[in-house]
């Protein structure tokens, strides 16, 4: 038996949300590459990121030939002609917010454009499979997803293989539409991925963004949302599992710029192995006009072994008192050996007990995701990660 015998372990360090020095509303966005210098790591937004490993993705460079394979499985009527820069709806939702995004945008002459027609409901998920063809090979990708008014669809972006991948995704959710966008980061160990996913949620529309990050050397994803009218409902979910040497960073920004909207942000992650590093930064801005809104953000991290590090930073800015609710919670805890002991004292083997505890940790977010196409492979992947770990420790 290899129970860790050090001191008790559940040290939830609930953090107080901080109000940043500068309002999130003032953060620069621009299509001009020159507006964003190459990050040094001293900038507030880059302070957690190993920028020295990202030189390839910061350079203003075109996509390498054959660096990526795209395969799109969507109904014929939904696949539209590619969009050049400046051709709407491209550029109406996403304006680059950092160096990674702006060089990706500038070097994407064509954007894949998928539009779910008004009132259409697709029972089957739409898929975009993205496979990187080699470590260090540069890919700039831009995808525009639009859900026509009162349509309903689930779109899965599945990233595998390896590349230096810059991915901008802009998402327009029409009035009354119900759109779920899933982004799976199942990269090989040597892939790097910088992403900006911006959504505008229409009047009375429902939007869900689900980020699942398992693979890759560095994944840094910004999932941002704002509203085009009252009654919008946005849910940003994330699940990540970082191994030794991996840096998985998820940032979200909910801009409550309309009244009577809702947002729920929930990210949960596990870390194992030396130097595994995860970052979550959740920004919420409630503008003066955002009366009656309701927002809650939560991040929880489960540290499975020594040497791993989870940073967790909620930022809440409130410019109106007239809201239904605003809350946040953030905690990072060590794997609890008392739970392991309890399960094992009922005859359950150590491997099985660990699996139960980790699966249990993710259980509520898995239930929130509720999409079988995501949940099943995700649980398998988590089991596989744990199996690796247990072999590694034996």
């Amino acid at each position, binding site marked *: *038996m290899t*129970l*860790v*015998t050090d001191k008790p372990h559940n040290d939830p360090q609930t953090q107080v949300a901080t109000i940043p020095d500068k309002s999130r509303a003032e953060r620069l966005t621009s299509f001009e590459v020159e507006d964003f210098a190459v990050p040094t790591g001293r900038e507030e937004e880059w302070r957690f990121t190993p920028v020295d490993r990202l030189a390839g993705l910061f350079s203003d460079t075109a996509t390498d030939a054959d660096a990526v394979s795209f395969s799109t499985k969507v109904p014929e009527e939904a696949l539209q002609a590619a969009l050049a820069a400046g051709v709407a709806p491209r550029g109406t939702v996403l304006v680059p917010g950092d160096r990674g995004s702006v060089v990706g945008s500038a070097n994407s002459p064509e954007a894949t454009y998928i539009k779910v027609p008004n009132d259409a409901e697709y029972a089957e998920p739409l898929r975009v499979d993205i496979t990187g063809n080699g470590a260090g090979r540069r890919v700039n990708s831009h995808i525009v997803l639009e859900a026509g008014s009162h349509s309903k669809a689930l779109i899965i972006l599945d990233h595998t293989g390896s590349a230096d991948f810059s991915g901008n995704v802009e998402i327009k959710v029409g009035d009354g539409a119900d759109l779920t966008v899933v982004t799976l980061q199942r990269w090989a160990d040597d892939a790097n991925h910088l992403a900006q996913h911006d959504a505008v949620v229409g009047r009375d529309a429902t939007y869900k963004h689900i980020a699942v990050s398992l693979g890759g050397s560095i994944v840094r994803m910004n999932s941002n949302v704002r509203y085009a009218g009252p009654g919008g409902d946005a849910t940003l979910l994330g699940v990540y599992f970082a191994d030794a040497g991996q840096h998985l960073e998820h940032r979200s920004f909910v801009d409550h710029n309309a009244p009577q909207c809702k947002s729920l942000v929930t990210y949960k992650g596990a870390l194992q192995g030396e130097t595994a590093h995860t970052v979550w930064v959740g920004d919420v801005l409630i503008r003066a006009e955002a009366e009656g809104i309701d927002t809650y953000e939560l991040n929880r991290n489960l540290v499975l072994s020594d040497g791993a590090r989870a940073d967790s930073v909620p930022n809440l800015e409130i410019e109106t008192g007239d809201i239904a609710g605003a809350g946040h919670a953030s905690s990072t805890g060590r794997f*609890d*050996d*008392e*739970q392991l*002991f*309890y*399960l*094992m*004292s*009922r*005859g*359950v*083997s*150590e491997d*099985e*007990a660990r699996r*139960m*505890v980790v*699966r*249990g*940790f*993710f*259980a*509520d977010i898995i239930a929130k995701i509720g999409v079988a196409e995501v949940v099943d492979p995700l649980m398998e992947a988590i089991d596989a990660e744990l199996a690796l770990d247990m072999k590694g420790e034996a």
Partner: protein
Amino acid sequence: MATLEIKDLHVSVETEAGDKEILRGVDLTLNSGETHAIMGPNGSGKSTLAYSIAGHPKYTITSGTVTLDGEDVLAMGVDERAQAGLFLAMQYPVEVPGVTVSNFLRTAKTAIDGEAPKLRTWIKEVKEAMGQLRMDPVFAERNVNEGFSGGEKKRHEILQMELLKPKMAILDETDSGLDVDALKVVSEGVNRVKENSEVGVMLITHYTRILRYIEPDHVHVFINGRVAESGGPELADRLENEGYDRYQGAQV
């Protein structure tokens, strides 16, 4: 017929000020079908004894032996001890977020029996046992011990004892925190297991009131890390009247 034999058990815990000896030579023999009450003041080492037998990693066995039918229990992993037929109802059962009671019970049963129980009969068995312990069926879908009241946690421990059918059960203050009705329900549960099996029971308690429902064959007074006196049920009555002063005085 099984025998759990504890011989000259010494156990210490690591503290900031160095190792601290808590058990100082415990001798106890528990046979199938017997019920032994272990009574002693706070801090005398009762839970330490229970956890040490179950294999909690916090406790270091410095000398002595624990055997179950001659097999070296101390050489077994925590899970192997349970599979060998030992069960510990904990004083402070642990919450396991995200793991439902029904999943937990089924996984434990499978681990102990070495095969999955037949689904249909298992579900019936669980339902019945929960009913007898006056546990609402919704508990099956709640997470293990999460948000359970003190009394609900204790019922859940006895539910496990009923379903896992151990050879030897150690009940660590299962009575504490229970009101009279709950105490009755839980005691009935223990008595059912005693009737339906050959289980040997080590009943750790502060109070004699549970002994009105679960009759002990032997009573041991536990003081300062060892058994200070052993006797029959009448010893419990004497403790009820006189308390532990007699023993503690002697120890200074």
